[in-house]
């Protein structure tokens, strides 16, 4: 599973849309198993499943019909379609609502139906665009389980998300996007190291030397100095941390390993969307 990560406007959804053929790339080409997408659109799209951010369910149809109608948009036809739909309804906990409109579903179950719909034709790769946005914690966990189950079955999944814990827990690899370009790629902890460095220093809001520390770190080249609720959060290297300790021996701060939240904040700052 590949997690696409980036701040708002970084180009995650656009990248995803290019990958599943919704918009053509301005330059370059998309390949699937060595085949150019634009030259083999129909064949490639048969193997691709897409679950977009927007709820595009058919509220005039039943839950079951949503799956059946969606399957009708693919050729070759889905084998044993009704059995496949029954299995999906059962697996995604939607069987009790099969003959009802999606209007009766909660947000979590709507998301389940959207994911079930996107794999009704048994694709080889699934694109999930922010699959848990707007869900409560319990519903998010349920969706995580479903996605993890799909991954365990061998389905390749490309996921975009704003939730750092989601990206960290679900993704085997991360691709960090900034202004439409990939700036880091690899396993989650490695990506964090590449972008942020070794440690994050947190200086509390009541530390008298806070402003001086920030200025000192900036002077040493720290570009990702962020203020969160008055706290100063700065990713630093081992060398900078040693120097900081020597320079501000009387000051109080915490040190912890960087996480994806720090990465996200750093990216947002680079994008000018976080003050």
């Amino acid at each position, binding site marked *: 599973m590949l997690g696409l990560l980036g701040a708002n406007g970084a180009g995650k959804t656009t990248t995803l849309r290019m990958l599943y053929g919704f918009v053509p790339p301005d330059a370059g080409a998309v390949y699937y198993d060595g085949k150019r997408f634009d030259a083999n659109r129909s064949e490639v799209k*048969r193997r691709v499943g897409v679950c977009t951010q927007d709820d595009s369910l058919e509220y005039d149809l039943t839950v079951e019909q949503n799956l059946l109608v969606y399957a009708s*948009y693919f050729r070759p036809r889905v084998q044993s379609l009704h059995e496949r739909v029954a299995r999906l309804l059962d697996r995604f906990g939607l069987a009790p609502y099969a003959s009802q409109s999606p209007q009766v579903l909660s947000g979590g179950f709507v998301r389940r139906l959207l994911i079930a719909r996107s794999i009704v034709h048994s694709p080889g790769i699934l694109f999930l665009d922010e699959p848990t946005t707007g869900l409560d914690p319990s519903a998010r966990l349920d969706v995580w389980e479903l996605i993890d189950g799909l991954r365990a079955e061998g389905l390749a999944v490309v996921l975009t998300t704003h939730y750092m814990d989601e990206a960290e827990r679900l993704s085997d690899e991360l691709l960090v996007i900034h202004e439409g370009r990939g700036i880091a790629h690899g396993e989650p902890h490695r990506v964090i190291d590449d972008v942020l460095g070794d440690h994050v220093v947190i200086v509390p809001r009541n530390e008298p030397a806070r402003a001086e520390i920030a200025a000192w770190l900036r002077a040493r080249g720290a570009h990702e100095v962020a203020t969160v609720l008055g706290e100063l959060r700065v990713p630093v290297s081992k060398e900078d941390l040693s120097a900081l300790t020597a320079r501000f021996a009387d000051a109080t701060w915490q040190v912890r390993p960087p996480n994806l939240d720090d990465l996200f904040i750093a990216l947002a700052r680079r994008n000018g969307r976080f003050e």
Partner: protein
Amino acid sequence: MSALRTLLAASDWRSWAVFRRNTLVFARHWRTALIPPAMEPVIFFLAFGLGFSGFIEDFSYRGIDINYATYVAAGLIAYTGFSTPYYESLYAAYFRMFYQKTWDGILATQVELPNVVWGEILWAAVRGMVNITIVAVTIGLFSTMGLVDIRPQFLVFMPLLGFIAGCAFAAFALIFTAIVPAIDHMNYPVFLIGWPLSLVSNTFFPVEPENPLLFALMQLNPIYHLAECARGLLVFGDPGSHLLGLFGSSVLWLVPSTLLAVRLTRRRVLGD
């Protein structure tokens, strides 16, 4: 080549998959989706045809005297054949595109944008056929009551005549669906184009322009040919040259409208 491919998409299974989707949704709500819109031309017929005909003397039409109700009966076939696909492609398609995001979901599959446009065109034209059938049945009933003087056996051809023109009207409407910024702006294609066009097409009253330019423009109007075709069949059993005019003008509307609708919808939906 691209234009030809767009036009040939009409016969693609993907276009018919979109058509089938719309049929299925209609089948779920046919009572509310069908009866109120189909009652409009029936009410028009009662108001204008039967109501006004008592005040209007019989007049000469292609050499024979007919009453106003008979004249309007054919006009309502044409009006229905225009208004149903036109409004279906304006309002219902806009809802599917903008509010329900139905097209976004469909376009994430093997279905491509020209297929979505063609699915909408074909569906709207068939909706027109369905409503024309209801109007034709009503006119047939009035015929048995002696209120209109027509050849009822020709009513069976009315939905078929409506289909080709319906495709043209639907494609034309989809141009506006692709460009209106919000649903409120639909008033422009409805009141500035739809209504005037349907009134100057020999539907409710004869229009015989002496100006050669206006006359030529009228020949390009499928509603006019649909009205005259229906009237010719119902009164004389012969559509005359208007059958050719109906096909010709419909194709003239359909081809450029479809190409433009696909292009504008691509820009609207895909941002391309």
